[in-house]
Protein backbone atom coordinates (compact mmCIF):
# COMPACT_ATOMS: atom_id res chain seq x y z
CA UNK A 1 0.00 0.00 0.00
CA UNK A 2 1.34 3.43 -0.88
CA UNK A 3 1.27 5.91 1.93
CA UNK A 4 1.35 9.55 1.11
CA UNK A 5 3.98 10.64 3.54
CA UNK A 6 4.11 14.32 2.64
CA UNK A 7 2.72 15.07 6.04
CA UNK A 8 5.66 13.31 7.65
CA UNK A 9 8.26 15.71 6.16
CA UNK A 10 9.58 18.25 8.64
CA UNK A 11 8.69 21.88 7.93
CA UNK A 12 11.13 23.73 5.65
CA UNK A 13 14.00 24.86 7.84
CA UNK A 14 15.74 28.24 7.37
CA UNK A 15 18.86 26.38 6.30
CA UNK A 16 17.02 24.56 3.55
CA UNK A 17 15.46 27.80 2.43
CA UNK A 18 18.83 29.54 2.13
CA UNK A 19 20.14 26.60 0.12
CA UNK A 20 17.26 26.92 -2.28
CA UNK A 21 17.95 30.60 -2.70
CA UNK A 22 21.65 29.94 -3.29
CA UNK A 23 20.74 27.32 -5.86
CA UNK A 24 18.49 29.76 -7.70
CA UNK A 25 21.11 32.53 -7.64
CA UNK A 26 23.75 30.22 -9.10
CA UNK A 27 21.40 28.99 -11.77
CA UNK A 28 20.69 32.53 -12.94
CA UNK A 29 24.35 33.51 -12.71
CA UNK A 30 25.35 30.60 -14.95
CA UNK A 31 22.60 31.43 -17.43
CA UNK A 32 23.76 35.04 -17.52
CA UNK A 33 27.36 33.99 -18.19
CA UNK A 34 26.22 31.77 -21.03
CA UNK A 35 24.33 34.68 -22.59
CA UNK A 36 27.33 36.98 -22.12
CA UNK A 37 29.50 34.51 -23.99
CA UNK A 38 27.05 34.41 -26.89
CA UNK A 39 26.45 38.15 -26.90
CA UNK A 40 29.69 39.39 -28.52
CA UNK A 41 29.38 37.02 -31.48
CA UNK A 42 25.71 37.87 -32.01
CA UNK A 43 26.40 41.59 -31.59
CA UNK A 44 29.36 41.58 -33.96
CA UNK A 45 27.60 39.58 -36.64
CA UNK A 46 24.46 41.69 -36.19
CA UNK A 47 26.31 44.99 -36.57
CA UNK A 48 28.38 43.75 -39.48
CA UNK A 49 25.29 42.49 -41.30
CA UNK A 50 23.24 45.62 -40.62
CA UNK A 51 25.97 48.04 -41.67
CA UNK A 52 27.65 45.91 -44.32
CA UNK A 53 24.66 44.58 -46.22
CA UNK A 54 23.61 47.93 -47.84
CA UNK A 55 26.93 48.25 -49.71
CA UNK A 56 27.11 44.58 -50.60
CA UNK A 57 26.18 43.59 -54.12
CA UNK A 58 27.63 41.60 -57.00
CA UNK A 59 29.52 44.63 -58.25
CA UNK A 60 31.18 45.05 -54.84
CA UNK A 61 32.36 41.44 -54.85
CA UNK A 62 33.78 41.50 -58.36
CA UNK A 63 34.99 44.97 -59.33
CA UNK A 64 38.17 46.87 -58.51
CA UNK A 65 38.33 50.01 -56.34
CA UNK A 66 37.53 53.35 -57.97
CA UNK A 67 39.85 56.36 -57.46
CA UNK A 68 39.13 58.57 -54.45
CA UNK A 69 36.12 60.80 -55.09
CA UNK A 70 34.34 58.44 -57.42
CA UNK A 71 31.61 56.32 -55.86
CA UNK A 72 31.21 52.59 -56.44
CA UNK A 73 33.98 50.10 -56.97
CA UNK A 74 34.56 46.94 -55.00
CA UNK A 75 36.96 44.57 -53.37
CA UNK A 76 37.21 41.81 -55.97
CA UNK A 77 40.97 42.18 -55.92
CA UNK A 78 41.08 41.75 -52.13
CA UNK A 79 38.83 38.66 -52.10
CA UNK A 80 41.06 37.02 -54.70
CA UNK A 81 44.13 38.27 -52.84
CA UNK A 82 42.97 36.76 -49.56
CA UNK A 83 42.24 33.41 -51.21
CA UNK A 84 45.60 33.58 -52.97
CA UNK A 85 47.48 34.37 -49.74
CA UNK A 86 45.66 31.78 -47.63
CA UNK A 87 46.05 29.04 -50.25
CA UNK A 88 49.70 30.01 -50.64
CA UNK A 89 50.08 29.73 -46.87
CA UNK A 90 48.52 26.25 -46.94
CA UNK A 91 50.86 25.27 -49.77
CA UNK A 92 53.75 25.84 -47.37
CA UNK A 93 52.11 24.84 -44.07
CA UNK A 94 50.39 21.57 -45.09
CA UNK A 95 53.48 19.71 -46.37
CA UNK A 96 55.26 20.62 -43.14
CA UNK A 97 52.39 20.47 -40.64
CA UNK A 98 50.74 17.18 -41.59
CA UNK A 99 53.92 15.06 -41.43
CA UNK A 100 54.86 16.86 -38.20
CA UNK A 101 51.48 15.95 -36.70
CA UNK A 102 51.90 12.35 -37.84
CA UNK A 103 55.30 12.29 -36.18
CA UNK A 104 53.90 13.72 -32.94
CA UNK A 105 51.14 11.09 -32.90
CA UNK A 106 53.58 8.22 -33.45
CA UNK A 107 55.40 8.73 -30.13
CA UNK A 108 58.49 7.24 -31.73
CA UNK A 109 60.82 9.78 -30.11
CA UNK A 110 59.07 11.02 -26.97
CA UNK A 111 61.73 13.60 -26.05
CA UNK A 112 61.90 15.26 -29.47
CA UNK A 113 58.12 14.94 -29.81
CA UNK A 114 57.58 16.77 -26.53
CA UNK A 115 59.89 19.57 -27.61
CA UNK A 116 58.21 19.91 -30.99
CA UNK A 117 54.76 19.92 -29.35
CA UNK A 118 55.83 22.64 -26.92
CA UNK A 119 57.30 24.71 -29.76
CA UNK A 120 54.08 24.36 -31.76
CA UNK A 121 52.02 25.52 -28.80
CA UNK A 122 54.34 28.46 -28.14
CA UNK A 123 54.33 29.36 -31.84
CA UNK A 124 50.55 29.50 -31.88
CA UNK A 125 50.76 32.00 -29.03
CA UNK A 126 53.31 34.31 -30.68
CA UNK A 127 51.63 37.66 -31.52
CA UNK A 128 50.89 37.69 -35.21
CA UNK A 129 52.56 41.07 -35.71
CA UNK A 130 55.82 39.50 -34.56
CA UNK A 131 55.34 36.77 -37.17
CA UNK A 132 54.84 39.57 -39.70
CA UNK A 133 58.10 41.24 -38.68
CA UNK A 134 59.89 37.93 -38.97
CA UNK A 135 58.60 37.43 -42.51
CA UNK A 136 59.48 41.05 -43.27
CA UNK A 137 63.15 40.65 -42.32
CA UNK A 138 63.37 37.26 -44.00
CA UNK A 139 61.55 37.82 -47.29
CA UNK A 140 60.88 41.53 -47.78
CA UNK A 141 64.13 43.26 -46.82
CA UNK A 142 66.45 41.04 -48.92
CA UNK A 143 64.29 41.58 -52.05
CA UNK A 144 63.53 45.22 -51.24
CA UNK A 145 59.97 44.45 -52.27
CA UNK A 146 56.67 43.73 -50.47
CA UNK A 147 55.32 40.54 -51.94
CA UNK A 148 52.49 38.01 -51.89
CA UNK A 149 55.11 35.37 -51.23
CA UNK A 150 56.18 37.05 -47.97
CA UNK A 151 52.52 37.35 -46.94
CA UNK A 152 51.82 33.69 -47.68
CA UNK A 153 54.91 32.73 -45.71
CA UNK A 154 53.78 34.78 -42.70
CA UNK A 155 50.34 33.13 -42.85
CA UNK A 156 51.99 29.70 -43.16
CA UNK A 157 53.84 30.30 -39.89
CA UNK A 158 50.52 31.13 -38.23
CA UNK A 159 48.74 28.10 -39.76
CA UNK A 160 51.49 25.61 -38.99
CA UNK A 161 50.77 24.87 -35.31
CA UNK A 162 47.02 24.50 -35.97
CA UNK A 163 47.65 21.98 -38.75
CA UNK A 164 50.29 20.01 -36.83
CA UNK A 165 48.27 19.77 -33.62
CA UNK A 166 44.92 18.88 -35.26
CA UNK A 167 46.67 16.28 -37.40
CA UNK A 168 48.25 14.81 -34.27
CA UNK A 169 44.88 14.66 -32.52
CA UNK A 170 42.99 12.97 -35.35
CA UNK A 171 45.81 10.54 -36.13
CA UNK A 172 45.78 9.51 -32.47
CA UNK A 173 42.08 8.68 -32.85
CA UNK A 174 42.84 6.00 -35.45
CA UNK A 175 42.71 2.73 -33.48
CA UNK A 176 46.08 1.06 -33.00
CA UNK A 177 44.48 -2.19 -34.23
CA UNK A 178 44.52 -0.67 -37.74
CA UNK A 179 48.22 0.05 -37.54
CA UNK A 180 48.88 -3.44 -36.16
CA UNK A 181 46.84 -5.11 -38.88
CA UNK A 182 48.81 -3.28 -41.55
CA UNK A 183 52.19 -3.95 -39.93
CA UNK A 184 51.31 -7.64 -39.58
CA UNK A 185 50.73 -7.77 -43.34
CA UNK A 186 54.33 -6.71 -43.80
CA UNK A 187 53.68 -3.06 -44.56
CA UNK A 188 56.53 -0.64 -43.92
CA UNK A 189 55.64 2.17 -41.54
CA UNK A 190 55.42 4.89 -44.19
CA UNK A 191 52.89 2.86 -46.16
CA UNK A 192 50.88 2.20 -43.01
CA UNK A 193 50.73 5.96 -42.55
CA UNK A 194 49.93 6.86 -46.16
CA UNK A 195 47.54 4.01 -47.01
CA UNK A 196 45.83 3.19 -43.72
CA UNK A 197 46.16 5.87 -41.04
CA UNK A 198 45.87 9.09 -43.06
CA UNK A 199 42.87 7.85 -45.11
CA UNK A 200 41.11 6.97 -41.83
CA UNK A 201 41.96 10.34 -40.35
CA UNK A 202 41.42 12.16 -43.65
CA UNK A 203 38.30 14.06 -42.68
CA UNK A 204 39.85 15.28 -39.45
CA UNK A 205 43.03 16.37 -41.20
CA UNK A 206 40.93 18.23 -43.79
CA UNK A 207 39.03 19.92 -40.96
CA UNK A 208 42.30 21.07 -39.43
CA UNK A 209 43.43 22.43 -42.77
CA UNK A 210 40.16 24.33 -43.24
CA UNK A 211 40.40 25.75 -39.72
CA UNK A 212 43.95 26.88 -40.45
CA UNK A 213 42.77 28.41 -43.73
CA UNK A 214 40.12 30.52 -42.04
CA UNK A 215 42.52 31.48 -39.27
CA UNK A 216 45.03 32.68 -41.86
CA UNK A 217 42.41 34.41 -44.01
CA UNK A 218 41.38 36.58 -41.06
CA UNK A 219 44.88 37.76 -40.09
CA UNK A 220 45.78 41.41 -40.65
CA UNK A 221 48.94 42.20 -38.75
CA UNK A 222 51.27 39.73 -40.50
CA UNK A 223 50.19 41.09 -43.88
CA UNK A 224 50.71 44.80 -43.15
CA UNK A 225 54.39 44.79 -43.98
CA UNK A 226 54.61 41.65 -46.11
CA UNK A 227 51.75 41.49 -48.64
CA UNK A 228 51.21 45.22 -47.96
CA UNK A 229 48.03 45.58 -50.01
CA UNK A 230 47.33 46.82 -53.49
CA UNK A 231 44.71 48.76 -55.41
CA UNK A 232 45.04 46.43 -58.35
CA UNK A 233 44.32 42.84 -59.17
CA UNK A 234 47.70 41.14 -58.92
CA UNK A 235 48.59 37.48 -58.99
CA UNK A 236 52.38 37.55 -59.10
CA UNK A 237 53.97 36.11 -55.94
CA UNK A 238 56.67 38.77 -56.17
CA UNK A 239 54.24 41.72 -56.21
CA UNK A 240 52.37 43.28 -53.30
CA UNK A 241 48.85 41.89 -53.15
CA UNK A 242 45.53 43.06 -51.71
CA UNK A 243 43.79 41.24 -48.86
CA UNK A 244 40.38 41.72 -47.27
CA UNK A 245 41.66 42.56 -43.77
CA UNK A 246 44.04 45.18 -45.22
CA UNK A 247 41.29 46.77 -47.31
CA UNK A 248 39.06 46.78 -44.27
CA UNK A 249 41.72 48.52 -42.19
CA UNK A 250 42.62 51.10 -44.83
CA UNK A 251 39.00 51.94 -45.64
CA UNK A 252 37.92 52.10 -42.01
CA UNK A 253 40.57 54.65 -41.07
CA UNK A 254 39.95 56.74 -44.20
CA UNK A 255 37.99 60.01 -44.02
CA UNK A 256 35.45 59.05 -46.73
CA UNK A 257 31.89 57.90 -45.92
CA UNK A 258 31.74 55.81 -49.06
CA UNK A 259 34.86 53.91 -47.97
CA UNK A 260 33.42 53.43 -44.48
CA UNK A 261 30.39 51.71 -45.99
CA UNK A 262 32.67 49.55 -48.12
CA UNK A 263 34.75 48.68 -45.03
CA UNK A 264 31.61 47.32 -43.38
CA UNK A 265 30.75 45.32 -46.46
CA UNK A 266 34.32 43.96 -46.58
CA UNK A 267 33.97 43.04 -42.89
CA UNK A 268 30.81 41.11 -43.71
CA UNK A 269 32.53 39.19 -46.51
CA UNK A 270 35.56 38.43 -44.34
CA UNK A 271 33.51 37.36 -41.32
CA UNK A 272 31.35 35.10 -43.49
CA UNK A 273 34.44 33.51 -45.03
CA UNK A 274 36.10 32.83 -41.66
CA UNK A 275 32.89 31.71 -39.98
CA UNK A 276 32.04 29.35 -42.83
CA UNK A 277 35.49 27.79 -42.55
CA UNK A 278 35.09 27.25 -38.83
CA UNK A 279 31.61 25.77 -39.20
CA UNK A 280 32.75 23.39 -41.96
CA UNK A 281 35.71 22.28 -39.82
CA UNK A 282 33.47 21.72 -36.78
CA UNK A 283 30.86 19.77 -38.69
CA UNK A 284 33.51 17.60 -40.33
CA UNK A 285 35.16 16.73 -37.01
CA UNK A 286 31.93 15.91 -35.19
CA UNK A 287 30.65 13.76 -38.06
CA UNK A 288 33.74 11.58 -38.06
CA UNK A 289 33.19 10.46 -34.47
CA UNK A 290 30.09 8.62 -35.66
Amino acid at each position, binding site marked *: MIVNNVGLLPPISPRLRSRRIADRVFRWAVMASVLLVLLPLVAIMGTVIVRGAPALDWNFLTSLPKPVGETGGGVGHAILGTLFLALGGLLIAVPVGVPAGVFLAS*DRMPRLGGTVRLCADVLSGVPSIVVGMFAYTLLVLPFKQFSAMAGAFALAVIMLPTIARTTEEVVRLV*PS*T*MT*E*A*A*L*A*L*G*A*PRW*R*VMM*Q*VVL*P*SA*GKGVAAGVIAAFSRGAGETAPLMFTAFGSQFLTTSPMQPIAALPLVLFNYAVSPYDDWHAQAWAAALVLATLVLAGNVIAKVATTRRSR
Partner: protein
Amino acid sequence: MNPMPMPTETRRIATGAAGRDVALVAPRPHLGMPFQRDEDSPTAPDKEPRGIKMVIDSLTAGYGSHAVLRNVSLPVIERTVTAVIGPSGCGKSTLVRCLNRMHEIIPNACVSGRVLLDGRDIYGGHLDPIELRRRVGMVFQKPNPFPTMTVRDNVLAGWRLTGTRPPNADGVVEDALRRAALWDEVKDRLKAPGASLSGGQAQRLCIARALAVRPDVLLMDEPCSALDPIATARIEELIHELASSVTIVIVTHNMQQAARVSENTAFLYMGELIEFGATAGLFTRPSDPRTEDYITGRFG
Protein backbone atom coordinates in the same frame (compact mmCIF):
# COMPACT_ATOMS: atom_id res chain seq x y z
CA MET B 1 54.82 -39.31 -23.20
CA ASN B 2 57.51 -36.79 -22.91
CA PRO B 3 57.35 -34.90 -19.67
CA MET B 4 59.78 -32.26 -20.92
CA PRO B 5 58.31 -29.68 -23.28
CA MET B 6 61.21 -29.53 -25.72
CA PRO B 7 63.51 -32.52 -25.57
CA THR B 8 66.93 -31.94 -27.05
CA GLU B 9 66.34 -34.79 -29.44
CA THR B 10 63.46 -32.98 -31.10
CA ARG B 11 65.54 -29.87 -31.37
CA ARG B 12 68.26 -31.71 -33.20
CA ILE B 13 65.75 -33.22 -35.58
CA ALA B 14 64.30 -29.80 -36.15
CA THR B 15 67.49 -28.17 -37.28
CA GLY B 16 68.57 -31.29 -39.12
CA ALA B 17 65.43 -31.81 -41.16
CA ALA B 18 64.85 -28.20 -42.05
CA GLY B 19 68.40 -26.88 -41.90
CA ARG B 20 69.35 -23.62 -43.51
CA ASP B 21 70.64 -25.01 -46.81
CA VAL B 22 67.71 -27.32 -47.27
CA ALA B 23 65.27 -24.55 -46.54
CA LEU B 24 66.85 -22.15 -48.99
CA VAL B 25 66.57 -24.48 -51.95
CA ALA B 26 63.31 -26.19 -50.98
CA PRO B 27 60.49 -25.03 -53.28
CA ARG B 28 57.52 -23.38 -51.61
CA PRO B 29 54.94 -25.93 -52.59
CA HIS B 30 51.78 -23.93 -53.15
CA LEU B 31 53.14 -20.94 -54.99
CA GLY B 32 51.72 -21.02 -58.49
CA MET B 33 49.46 -24.02 -57.96
CA PRO B 34 46.96 -22.64 -55.52
CA PHE B 35 44.19 -25.19 -55.80
CA GLN B 36 46.13 -28.37 -55.97
CA ARG B 37 46.53 -28.94 -52.29
CA ASP B 38 43.12 -27.92 -51.02
CA GLU B 39 40.76 -29.05 -53.77
CA ASP B 40 42.23 -31.37 -56.35
CA SER B 41 43.78 -33.80 -53.91
CA PRO B 42 42.40 -33.22 -50.47
CA THR B 43 43.94 -36.36 -49.01
CA ALA B 44 47.42 -35.77 -50.35
CA PRO B 45 48.78 -33.66 -47.48
CA ASP B 46 48.16 -36.39 -44.95
CA LYS B 47 50.37 -38.81 -46.83
CA GLU B 48 53.30 -36.43 -46.94
CA PRO B 49 55.66 -36.55 -44.03
CA ARG B 50 55.38 -33.39 -42.04
CA GLY B 51 58.51 -31.48 -41.21
CA ILE B 52 59.04 -28.89 -38.57
CA LYS B 53 58.04 -25.45 -39.79
CA MET B 54 59.17 -23.33 -36.88
CA VAL B 55 61.33 -23.91 -33.85
CA ILE B 56 61.08 -21.69 -30.82
CA ASP B 57 64.34 -22.05 -28.96
CA SER B 58 64.95 -20.64 -25.45
CA LEU B 59 62.75 -17.65 -26.18
CA THR B 60 62.60 -14.99 -23.50
CA ALA B 61 60.56 -11.86 -24.22
CA GLY B 62 59.11 -8.94 -22.34
CA TYR B 63 59.19 -5.22 -21.85
CA GLY B 64 62.25 -3.48 -20.45
CA SER B 65 63.48 -5.61 -17.58
CA HIS B 66 60.15 -7.39 -17.09
CA ALA B 67 60.08 -10.82 -18.73
CA VAL B 68 56.64 -11.93 -19.89
CA LEU B 69 57.98 -15.15 -21.40
CA ARG B 70 60.85 -17.12 -19.91
CA ASN B 71 62.95 -19.63 -21.78
CA VAL B 72 60.21 -21.14 -23.92
CA SER B 73 61.16 -23.84 -26.42
CA LEU B 74 58.82 -25.79 -28.67
CA PRO B 75 58.49 -26.94 -32.27
CA VAL B 76 55.69 -26.01 -34.65
CA ILE B 77 54.92 -28.89 -36.99
CA GLU B 78 54.25 -28.10 -40.63
CA ARG B 79 50.59 -28.06 -41.76
CA THR B 80 49.14 -28.75 -38.35
CA VAL B 81 47.32 -26.64 -35.83
CA THR B 82 49.28 -25.85 -32.69
CA ALA B 83 47.23 -24.40 -29.85
CA VAL B 84 48.66 -22.21 -27.12
CA ILE B 85 46.57 -22.23 -23.97
CA GLY B 86 46.93 -20.79 -20.50
CA PRO B 87 45.34 -18.32 -18.12
CA SER B 88 45.18 -14.58 -18.87
CA GLY B 89 48.54 -12.86 -18.73
CA CYS B 90 50.57 -16.05 -19.09
CA GLY B 91 52.32 -14.79 -22.24
CA LYS B 92 50.28 -16.54 -24.96
CA SER B 93 49.90 -13.45 -27.10
CA THR B 94 53.49 -12.40 -26.54
CA LEU B 95 54.60 -15.85 -27.72
CA VAL B 96 52.77 -15.67 -31.06
CA ARG B 97 53.71 -12.04 -31.54
CA CYS B 98 57.35 -13.08 -31.31
CA LEU B 99 56.82 -15.45 -34.26
CA ASN B 100 56.26 -12.61 -36.76
CA ARG B 101 58.23 -9.99 -34.85
CA MET B 102 55.11 -7.99 -34.01
CA HIS B 103 56.21 -7.99 -30.38
CA GLU B 104 58.97 -5.52 -31.13
CA ILE B 105 56.68 -2.79 -32.48
CA ILE B 106 55.79 -1.96 -28.88
CA PRO B 107 58.29 0.53 -27.44
CA ASN B 108 60.62 -0.99 -24.86
CA ALA B 109 59.99 -4.57 -26.05
CA CYS B 110 62.86 -7.02 -25.78
CA VAL B 111 63.46 -10.53 -27.10
CA SER B 112 66.23 -13.05 -26.68
CA GLY B 113 66.62 -16.62 -27.88
CA ARG B 114 66.00 -17.96 -31.35
CA VAL B 115 62.96 -18.53 -33.52
CA LEU B 116 63.68 -20.61 -36.62
CA LEU B 117 61.47 -20.51 -39.70
CA ASP B 118 62.48 -23.30 -42.08
CA GLY B 119 65.76 -23.45 -40.21
CA ARG B 120 66.59 -19.75 -40.44
CA ASP B 121 66.64 -17.61 -37.34
CA ILE B 122 64.08 -14.82 -37.84
CA TYR B 123 66.01 -12.71 -35.33
CA GLY B 124 69.30 -13.53 -37.03
CA GLY B 125 69.50 -10.28 -38.97
CA HIS B 126 69.30 -11.73 -42.50
CA LEU B 127 65.51 -11.71 -42.60
CA ASP B 128 63.63 -8.46 -42.96
CA PRO B 129 60.52 -8.21 -40.70
CA ILE B 130 58.57 -7.16 -43.79
CA GLU B 131 59.54 -10.33 -45.67
CA LEU B 132 58.94 -12.38 -42.52
CA ARG B 133 55.43 -11.01 -42.00
CA ARG B 134 54.46 -11.92 -45.55
CA ARG B 135 55.42 -15.52 -44.80
CA VAL B 136 53.93 -15.52 -41.31
CA GLY B 137 50.45 -13.97 -41.42
CA MET B 138 48.40 -12.92 -38.43
CA VAL B 139 44.75 -12.72 -37.43
CA PHE B 140 43.88 -10.65 -34.38
CA GLN B 141 41.50 -10.97 -31.48
CA LYS B 142 39.08 -8.33 -32.71
CA PRO B 143 38.21 -8.36 -36.42
CA ASN B 144 40.05 -5.37 -37.86
CA PRO B 145 39.28 -4.93 -41.55
CA PHE B 146 40.43 -1.56 -42.90
CA PRO B 147 37.30 0.62 -42.75
CA THR B 148 38.43 2.93 -45.56
CA MET B 149 38.87 0.06 -48.02
CA THR B 150 36.35 -2.08 -49.87
CA VAL B 151 36.04 -5.81 -49.23
CA ARG B 152 38.13 -6.45 -52.34
CA ASP B 153 40.80 -3.91 -51.37
CA ASN B 154 40.96 -5.42 -47.89
CA VAL B 155 41.82 -8.79 -49.38
CA LEU B 156 44.48 -7.19 -51.56
CA ALA B 157 45.83 -5.02 -48.73
CA GLY B 158 48.75 -7.33 -48.05
CA TRP B 159 49.95 -6.80 -51.62
CA ARG B 160 49.20 -3.12 -51.90
CA LEU B 161 50.68 -2.26 -48.51
CA THR B 162 53.95 -3.83 -49.52
CA GLY B 163 54.02 -2.00 -52.82
CA THR B 164 53.49 -5.10 -54.94
CA ARG B 165 50.82 -6.10 -57.42
CA PRO B 166 49.40 -9.59 -57.55
CA PRO B 167 49.71 -11.10 -61.04
CA ASN B 168 45.96 -11.73 -61.20
CA ALA B 169 44.14 -9.59 -58.66
CA ASP B 170 40.64 -10.98 -59.28
CA GLY B 171 41.96 -14.52 -58.99
CA VAL B 172 43.80 -13.72 -55.76
CA VAL B 173 40.67 -12.13 -54.27
CA GLU B 174 38.43 -15.04 -55.20
CA ASP B 175 40.93 -17.65 -54.09
CA ALA B 176 41.56 -15.99 -50.72
CA LEU B 177 37.86 -15.44 -50.05
CA ARG B 178 37.05 -19.03 -51.01
CA ARG B 179 39.76 -20.35 -48.71
CA ALA B 180 38.33 -18.17 -45.92
CA ALA B 181 34.83 -19.57 -46.70
CA LEU B 182 33.53 -16.07 -47.35
CA TRP B 183 33.30 -15.96 -51.14
CA ASP B 184 29.63 -16.93 -51.46
CA GLU B 185 28.57 -14.33 -48.90
CA VAL B 186 30.47 -11.36 -50.35
CA LYS B 187 30.96 -12.14 -54.06
CA ASP B 188 28.20 -9.66 -54.95
CA ARG B 189 29.45 -6.89 -52.75
CA LEU B 190 33.20 -6.79 -53.23
CA LYS B 191 32.89 -3.03 -53.60
CA ALA B 192 31.16 -2.60 -50.22
CA PRO B 193 33.19 -1.03 -47.41
CA GLY B 194 35.16 -3.47 -45.27
CA ALA B 195 33.39 -2.18 -42.18
CA SER B 196 29.95 -3.24 -43.50
CA LEU B 197 30.35 -6.94 -42.70
CA SER B 198 29.12 -8.70 -39.55
CA GLY B 199 31.63 -9.64 -36.86
CA GLY B 200 32.08 -13.21 -38.05
CA GLN B 201 32.30 -12.18 -41.70
CA ALA B 202 34.76 -9.43 -40.82
CA GLN B 203 36.99 -11.96 -39.07
CA ARG B 204 36.86 -14.27 -42.09
CA LEU B 205 37.72 -11.24 -44.24
CA CYS B 206 40.76 -10.71 -42.03
CA ILE B 207 41.68 -14.37 -42.54
CA ALA B 208 41.27 -13.93 -46.31
CA ARG B 209 43.45 -10.81 -46.13
CA ALA B 210 46.16 -12.80 -44.34
CA LEU B 211 45.85 -15.74 -46.78
CA ALA B 212 45.96 -13.56 -49.91
CA VAL B 213 49.73 -13.15 -49.69
CA ARG B 214 50.10 -16.94 -49.44
CA PRO B 215 51.80 -17.19 -46.06
CA ASP B 216 53.40 -20.44 -44.87
CA VAL B 217 52.26 -19.86 -41.31
CA LEU B 218 49.11 -18.26 -39.93
CA LEU B 219 49.12 -16.94 -36.38
CA MET B 220 45.72 -16.51 -34.77
CA ASP B 221 45.50 -14.57 -31.52
CA GLU B 222 42.18 -15.59 -29.91
CA PRO B 223 40.42 -15.20 -33.26
CA CYS B 224 36.99 -16.14 -31.91
CA SER B 225 36.89 -14.31 -28.61
CA ALA B 226 34.84 -11.43 -30.05
CA LEU B 227 32.45 -13.70 -31.96
CA ASP B 228 29.17 -15.47 -31.20
CA PRO B 229 29.02 -19.30 -31.04
CA ILE B 230 27.81 -19.75 -34.62
CA ALA B 231 30.51 -17.53 -36.08
CA THR B 232 33.01 -19.30 -33.82
CA ALA B 233 31.95 -22.70 -35.17
CA ARG B 234 32.47 -21.48 -38.75
CA ILE B 235 35.94 -20.17 -37.98
CA GLU B 236 36.88 -23.44 -36.26
CA GLU B 237 35.69 -25.40 -39.28
CA LEU B 238 37.75 -23.08 -41.44
CA ILE B 239 40.86 -23.59 -39.30
CA HIS B 240 40.42 -27.30 -39.82
CA GLU B 241 40.28 -26.92 -43.61
CA LEU B 242 43.18 -24.49 -43.73
CA ALA B 243 45.44 -26.78 -41.75
CA SER B 244 45.90 -28.93 -44.86
CA SER B 245 47.75 -26.11 -46.57
CA VAL B 246 48.99 -23.70 -43.88
CA THR B 247 50.75 -24.14 -40.58
CA ILE B 248 48.54 -22.60 -37.90
CA VAL B 249 49.39 -21.42 -34.40
CA ILE B 250 46.29 -20.43 -32.47
CA VAL B 251 46.13 -18.75 -29.09
CA THR B 252 42.95 -19.49 -27.21
CA HIS B 253 41.69 -19.18 -23.67
CA ASN B 254 38.99 -21.66 -24.57
CA MET B 255 40.24 -25.17 -23.81
CA GLN B 256 37.38 -26.87 -25.66
CA GLN B 257 38.42 -24.90 -28.73
CA ALA B 258 42.03 -26.02 -28.36
CA ALA B 259 40.84 -29.61 -28.02
CA ARG B 260 38.59 -29.30 -31.08
CA VAL B 261 40.96 -27.66 -33.55
CA SER B 262 44.54 -28.52 -32.67
CA GLU B 263 46.88 -31.47 -33.02
CA ASN B 264 49.45 -30.17 -30.58
CA THR B 265 48.96 -27.98 -27.54
CA ALA B 266 51.33 -25.88 -25.51
CA PHE B 267 50.30 -24.92 -21.99
CA LEU B 268 51.85 -21.73 -20.70
CA TYR B 269 51.67 -20.60 -17.12
CA MET B 270 53.20 -17.42 -15.75
CA GLY B 271 55.46 -17.00 -18.74
CA GLU B 272 56.81 -20.54 -18.72
CA LEU B 273 56.02 -23.48 -20.93
CA ILE B 274 54.67 -26.09 -18.55
CA GLU B 275 53.77 -28.77 -21.03
CA PHE B 276 53.79 -29.37 -24.78
CA GLY B 277 52.49 -32.42 -26.58
CA ALA B 278 49.78 -33.98 -28.69
CA THR B 279 46.48 -32.34 -27.81
CA ALA B 280 44.70 -35.61 -27.09
CA GLY B 281 47.40 -36.68 -24.68
CA LEU B 282 47.72 -33.33 -22.96
CA PHE B 283 44.02 -33.15 -22.26
CA THR B 284 43.56 -36.76 -21.16
CA ARG B 285 46.84 -37.54 -19.41
CA PRO B 286 48.55 -34.28 -18.47
CA SER B 287 51.96 -34.97 -17.01
CA ASP B 288 52.26 -31.81 -14.94
CA PRO B 289 49.91 -31.18 -11.99
CA ARG B 290 49.53 -27.51 -13.03
CA THR B 291 48.30 -28.55 -16.47
CA GLU B 292 45.83 -30.87 -14.83
CA ASP B 293 44.64 -28.16 -12.47
CA TYR B 294 44.15 -25.75 -15.37
CA ILE B 295 42.34 -28.09 -17.73
CA THR B 296 40.08 -29.35 -14.97
CA GLY B 297 39.14 -25.77 -14.20
CA ARG B 298 40.81 -25.37 -10.82
CA PHE B 299 42.30 -21.99 -11.83
CA GLY B 300 42.51 -19.63 -14.76
